[in-house]
Every structure is written in structure tokens, then in C-alpha cells.
């Protein structure tokens, strides 16, 4: 089943390095070109679900100025799920591009 876009961007954000909650929010905004801005309640609902599905895991905890920060990282299953989604999107894009090329050729007629 296709992955929802926020989930895709959360996993992508964590693909490079472990991040804490606000770090994930910033990375998702940046990666999506400002299209997706996660709010904290939504982010943590997604983190809970992805942790439960075994795609994420807590990497470490830190106290910064007396505040708790928890860093998350992808598990092997999480990397696998993201790779599978990347493959799916790549295949879809390739198929669409091939169709477009054919349509363009037809529009101009066969080369003689």
C-alpha cells in the first residue's frame, strides 16, 4: 500500500541521521519545500505509530536546558520500508514518463 506523504517525509528526514521532534518538523518542512508543516500532535501520533510498527526506534535522550529531547532513528525495517516506497515512486514515475514520451511522439507523428 502506498505510504502517506507525511510518513514518507518523516522517514526521509530520519534516513540521514537521528533527529529529535522539532528537528523532524524542520526537516520535513525543508524536504517538502514548505508544503508540509507538521504540528506537534500530528508528529507524535505518527512517531508512535511508526515506532510501534518497528520502523523507528529511540536513538538516545538528551536534556537541553533542563528539557527532554528524544532522538529517533530508522531501524532496518524502516530503511527497508523507505527503500520500497522509493522504488515504487521511481517505477510509477518511469511508467508515466514512458507514456508521456509515447504520447509526444504520436502527436508529432512517426519520423519518416
Amino acid at each position, binding site marked *: 500500500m502506498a505510504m502517506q506523504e507525511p510518513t514518507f517525509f518523516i522517514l526521509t528526514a530520519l534516513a540521514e541521521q537521528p533527529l*529529535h*521532534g*522539532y528537528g523532524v*518538523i524542520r526537516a520535513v518542512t525543508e524536504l517538502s519545500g514548505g508544503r508540509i508543516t507538521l*504540528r*506537534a*500532535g*500530528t*508528529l*507524535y*501520533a505518527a512517531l*508512535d*505509530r511508526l*515506532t*510501534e510498527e*518497528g520502523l523507528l*526506534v*529511540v536513538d538516545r535522550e538528551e536534556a*537541553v536546558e533542563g*528539557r*527532554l*529531547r*528524544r532522538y529517533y532513528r530508522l*531501524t532496518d525495517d524502516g530503511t527497508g520500508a523507505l527503500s520500497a516506497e522509493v522504488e515504487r515512486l521511481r517505477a510509477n514515475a518511469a511508467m508515466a514518463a514512458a507514456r508521456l514520451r509515447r504520447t509526444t511522439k504520436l502527436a508529432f507523428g512517426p519520423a519518416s
Partner: protein
Amino acid sequence: MSDLERRYRRLLLAYPRAYRRERGDELVTTLLEGAPPDRVRPAAGDAWDLLRGGLRLRFAPPHGRRYRVFALVGALAVGYLALAATARTTLDDDPGDQVLATAMALLPPDAGSTGVGDREWTSFGGPTELVFTFATEPSAIDGLTADIRARAVAQGFTAGPLEPGHRFTLDRAGQTAVVSVADGETYAGTAMSFEARFPWPAALLPAGIAALVLGGLTGWLASAWTLRRFRTRRPAGQLAIALVGVPSLLFVAAAAIGTVGAARGDLGPAVWAGGFFERLGILGLLVTLLLAAVLPRAGPLVAARPPRDNLRAGIRLVTVAHLAFGLPIAAVFVTFTVRMLVTGADRAAMVSGAHDPKEVLPLAVFAPIALLYYAGVVLSPLLLLVSVPLLGVGRGRVGPMTWRVLLAAAISAAVLPALLLTPYGGDVATWWMD
């Protein structure tokens, strides 16, 4: 603590206490880090997001289609139980079925007759309809109508004027009936037949809708709570909740389907009487809630999960399910045989009703065995669709003992229900079903 943090923490009260304990500080950190320096009040979007997230954790089933389907089935089951209880209560006070006696009193004394009485599904409140059909010439209907009307007046009814179509109304002590007389085909070739169509009590419509809605809502909330607890229990706890919960829902569903099937043409209260399966289903659902409440949780929400061997876990799950369904069937066989040997009764005497299993076994033993026995007869052979492929896939990939136990469990799933089809097993099943 800044005003903003205090306000965020106030919004976090929407979340369950256990969640706040685990996630609260982290969430507040994230919220504060994301807030501009001059912000003193939470943004409306953040506030709504937190309220929605918290309420979802408190009242919604866990994420996933499976959970939503179970919550919906739970809502329907409790909605039905509430409707059935309301129908029983309302119909117990309803004089509807007395109308048959009224109709009998109006029959011509010398006419061979047949009759039926039923409720219309769509009719709430309003008068009872009494339809008399005579196998006679149309010209005789005027006289027969007058006879019936006169007999009703003699019985103390107030009769309304004769209307076209040989119809008139009757009224006595608040009980109203509309009588119509016609010529035509009668049941079973008798000289006349009558049909009494009486309505459901008017109060049942609003009370039934309210029961269905409130019961459904309660069922949804209780199911969502149970499923949230289920999700965080250890695998053994999850299995226990599933083994009791799923058959219980099936029993309530069976009772509901039985009610719908029997209600057409029946007189009413008996249809909603609940019956054994409904009571067993209710008991099972209560036990499911209890299990969800008392079984320990698997561990902290955010802890890393150990890698899981799905094949081994699947084999264990199916084995335990087979055994949980098989053992009660075996227990019924053993109880029957032991009872027969101890009392010296023969098989005919055992099924005569003199050795009721509900009296032989204490209720605390009888109820769980009955729940798993009925579920096992249906579900255990179906589980073979899973366990047989697992036997093929698992050979050599799991320990020999694990594989052999699954093999034994799968054989028991085929053999034990099949034994119930033998003459001896048939007597055992008859005895158990009382």
C-alpha cells in the same frame, strides 16, 4: 515555567495520563522549540492539533483498518444488545398479543377456522388490524360483517360505523382494533380464516433508536479502549483477549441474526428473549473487558522492539489457538463419559435432560468451556487453512518440538470436531447443547 509552557501543559491534559507521563515533557520541548520567541499563547492550529491528538488517544481505536473494523463490530454488537434489552422491556408490558384472544371471541361459533397473528416490522403504535376472510359468496359478506360487529358489541366493545370495504373500528378499555371482512381464499381450505396484525408499541421506536445509538456509542468506546489495551499487551495477553473477545462477538452476531430471522411472523417478546448464545456473548464480552483491564502491558511505548521471528510467532499463535479450541471439545467428551460411568446412565439417559451439563459443572467452569467449545467447533477447522501451510513452511525452519506440537494441534483440530459427527459424538453434542 513560562506562561506559554503552562498553557501547552494545560492543552496536554487532553491526552491520557499514562501518555503524558511518557511523552509530555518531550512534546512540550518540541512545542516550545517550534514557537517564535514572542509567542505567549499557543497557536490555534497547535491547540486544535493537541486536543484532537489527545482525544483520539483517549477515544479512538488504534491506527489501522483491522482495529476500526473490530471497533465497528463491537459498536454494532453492543447496539444490538441495547436494542434487544429495550425491545424486551417494552414488549413485556405490551398488550399486543392479547388481541388474538379478542379475535377468537369474534369468530362465528360454528365456522371451521384458522388464523395467524403477527407484528408488522414497520408499524409502531396505531390500531390492531383484524382481517376476516370467508370462503363464501360476496353477497353473504354483508350479513357476516353485521354478525361479527354484533358479537363485538355483545362483548362490551364500542363499535364504530360501518365503512366501505366492510370495515369498522372497535374500542374497549383503550384497546382499539380495525376489523375488515372480505370473501376470498382462506388458509388450508377452511370456511374462514383470520389474520391479526398488531403494531409494535409506539414507545419502541424512539426508545429503540436511542438504545441503538447510545449502545453503539458505548460499544465503540469500549471496543476502542479494549483494542488500545490489546495493542500494548504481551503476546500471550493479546491471545487471551482475542480468544475470548472474537467468539463473544460471534455469539452476539449469531443471536442478532437469529432475532432478525425469527422476528418475521412471530409474536414478539419471545424473539428478543436473548437465549443462550446472547448470554454467553455478553458474559464473554465482560470477560474480555476484564482481561484487557488486568493483563500487564508489554513495556514502555517508545522502547525499541526486539527483532521478531514472524514464522515462529505465527506457529506459536496458531498452536495455542488450536489447543484453546480443542481442549474444551475434549473436556466435553471427557465430562460426558465420566458422568456416564459414575452414574451408570446409558447414552439415552444422558441426553434425556436428567444430566444437564449446566448442573454437572459449576458455572465458572461451564461458561468458558461453552464459549470456546462453540467457537472451536466452527473456528478450529477453519484455522487449518493457516496451520497446514505453516506446517509446510515451518518444517526445518523452527525447532522439531515446536513443529510437532503444531502438527498434533492441527490433527486435533480436524479429529475432535469430526468425532462430534459419530453417533457417540452426536450424543455428546446433544447432551452439551442441552
